[in-house]
């Protein structure tokens, strides 16, 4: 009887233990059936971004972009973005898409933008062969910040190289072979890219069906690509890239591209434009190194074959300053119109210079906090020594939520690449929720 009383007394404890073990079992349960492939999938993210721009009021690009607006020191911009991705499967075919819609508001502009980044139908008659037609963002090259052989894609933003970009309408296919031995893989990707009417109108001259192709090899553990784009809407070009691990935590990569008979416009400080036609060679050498403490270093040198030397860029900056002086003194906008036209061309590219150095260090689980990453990125125009430094913090510890904070600090004297940009500082923070 006493034993029974003792047992009854322990019963709540036994219940608790049983509940705890049930909880533990539930904690670790996994049934794969809920992850079966579905005929239709939809996902994406919503993002809210706040930016604060500090203007470089003496910079030529500030002057050019704002001369007919009220002058300001700062600008605050709020952007809401919805990016949707989806797939629709039927038989051997799959239709996939990615759309990007954004709503932007600052003290000057309220606007919205909607774009289809990808929308392509692909079929796979056999494992080694895929055909595809639609809008597709192809990514060629091994560089982290720059891609000289990115022949059939919109330019990458070195300030956010991992950002999804809008593709081009095209037809392409993939043929994969595995010969074995030291030549582990061969893959051939031919592309046809039409330009006409409103289709791919920003690729180049209308009225061309542009052919391009990439041939990939995995040879002796080295990734090698040969890329080509035929003459059409843009001058013909060809190139190659490689990437390999020298040791397991040390990767090196490179790209080389040659553009045939490209037209290049160079201005002097009086606005006299010289047009020359010739071949241009761009290349990139880079490395990625991971330390035992999970710090990743990325370094790249980029030679931009179509870029402007320090002297050539200085002539353009002088032209802009002369144009504003002329406008103020005589009221004549002639020189300013010339400068504006040039700034909308290759002088106004994000990286118009000839030689750039790129460096990034990122620390995973910084300060011992899991999912917290600290990074610093620096980009320098090697010829004029102007540069941009970007510290960055991000946290992904909350399920499906990404928080990122970035500060862009531009430094350079007058008549230098980063010293003449529109902003001297930019503060950016965003929250992105994936669903």
């Amino acid at each position: 009887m006493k034993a029974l009383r003792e047992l009854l007394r322990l019963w709540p404890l036994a219940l608790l233990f049983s509940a705890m073990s049930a909880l533990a079992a539930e904690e670790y349960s996994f049934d794969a059936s809920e992850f079966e492939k579905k005929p239709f999938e939809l996902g994406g993210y919503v993002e809210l971004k706040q930016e604060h721009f500090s203007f470089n009021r003496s910079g030529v690009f500030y002057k050019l972009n704002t001369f007919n607006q009220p002058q300001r020191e700062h600008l605050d911009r709020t952007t809401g973005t919805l990016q949707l991705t989806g797939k629709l499967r039927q038989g051997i075919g799959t239709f996939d898409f990615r759309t990007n819609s954004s709503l932007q508001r600052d003290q000057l502009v309220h606007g919205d933008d909607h774009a289809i980044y990808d929308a392509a139908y692909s079929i796979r008659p056999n494992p080694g062969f895929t055909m595809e037609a639609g809008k597709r963002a192809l990514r060629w090259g091994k560089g982290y910040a720059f891609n000289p052989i990115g022949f059939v894609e919109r330019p990458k933003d070195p300030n956010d190289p991992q950002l999804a970009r809008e593709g081009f309408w095209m037809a392409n296919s993939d043929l994969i072979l595995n010969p074995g031995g030291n030549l582990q893989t061969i893959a051939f990707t031919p592309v046809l890219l039409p330009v006409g009417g409103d289709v791919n109108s920003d690729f180049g001259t209308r009225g061309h069906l542009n052919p391009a192709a990439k041939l990939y090899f995995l040879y002796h553990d080295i990734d090698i690509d040969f890329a080509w784009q035929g003459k059409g809407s843009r001058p013909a070009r060809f190139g190659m890239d490689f990437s390999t691990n020298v040791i397991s935590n040390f990767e090196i990569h490179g790209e080389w591209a040659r553009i045939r008979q490209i037209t290049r416009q160079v201005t002097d400080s009086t606005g006299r434009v010289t047009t020359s036609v010739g071949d241009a060679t761009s290349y990139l050498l880079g490395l990625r190194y991971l330390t035992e403490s999970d710090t990743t270093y990325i370094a790249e040198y980029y030679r931009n074959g179509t870029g402007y030397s320090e002297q050539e860029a200085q002539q353009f900056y002088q032209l802009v300053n002369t144009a504003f002086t002329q406008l103020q003194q005589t009221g004549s906008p002639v020189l300013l119109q010339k400068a504006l036209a040039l700034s909308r061309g290759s002088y106004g590219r994000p990286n118009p210079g000839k030689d750039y150095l790129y460096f990034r260090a990122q620390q995973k689980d910084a300060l011992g906090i899991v999912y917290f990453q600290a990074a610093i990125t620096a980009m320098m125009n090697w010829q004029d020594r102007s540069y941009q430094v970007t510290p960055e913090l991000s946290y992904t510890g909350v399920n499906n939520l990404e928080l990122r904070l970035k500060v862009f600090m531009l430094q350079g004297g007058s008549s230098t690449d980063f010293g003449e940009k529109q902003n001297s500082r930019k503060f950016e923070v965003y929250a992105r929720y994936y669903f």
Partner: protein
Amino acid sequence: MRKLLWFILCFVALPAAAAAINGTEILKKVDRNLEPESYEAYRKLIDIQPDGSKKESVLYTMKKGRDKVVALFLSPPSDKGRVTLRDGDNMWLYMPDVGRAIRITSLQSVTGSVFNNADIMRIDYGAEYSVESAEEGKDGYVLALKAKTGEVAYDRLKMWVDKQLLLPTIIECYAASGLLIKTLRFKDIKDFSGGIKRPATLETDSPLQKGYKSVMLWSGIKKADFPDEYFTLNYLPRVSELRK
């Protein structure tokens, strides 16, 4: 007389040598008992932080032969569509937003987990390690393994093997300096049918990440054969179409 002595010694020594444990053979059986040489499976990774909060990832995995592995992230939404590929010592990560694959290393962790890429895209232990010594205990064997090359994530492993089932129970992973990097604990033996009976749970913790713990759960593991083309960079954007 001396010849006779040699003869007797040989007779005594031969059965002893035959009875000596063949560590390489045990490791081979451990590899095959853990999973078929080519298979597909679903895995859930649970990363538990010191405050008890959790992050979960679900992966679909295909392995072919001794050294080809593809793992596709099905969940969470922030990682969905990411694919990791291993072909021997080469490892790549494909991110759908970026639209191309970059080379990664075995020591990194694509999930922020105690499990690193070498754990997530593990190939046969026998493909990466040689058996330095094998000891027999009451309930099992203890194998001391040494990495065959410097490309392997852990320089040495100490593996406790269940004698009856010939499956690992605990593996300690060491750096070349002798530092214990992590301990893997295999639990919950389950019959997955098709002759596959193996631990359904793998837990790990690391003295380098005190208070953190990661768990890997297995489901739907079955033998499968795949074309080599699936294990190439060009195929990574389409891996999600391969699941049945």
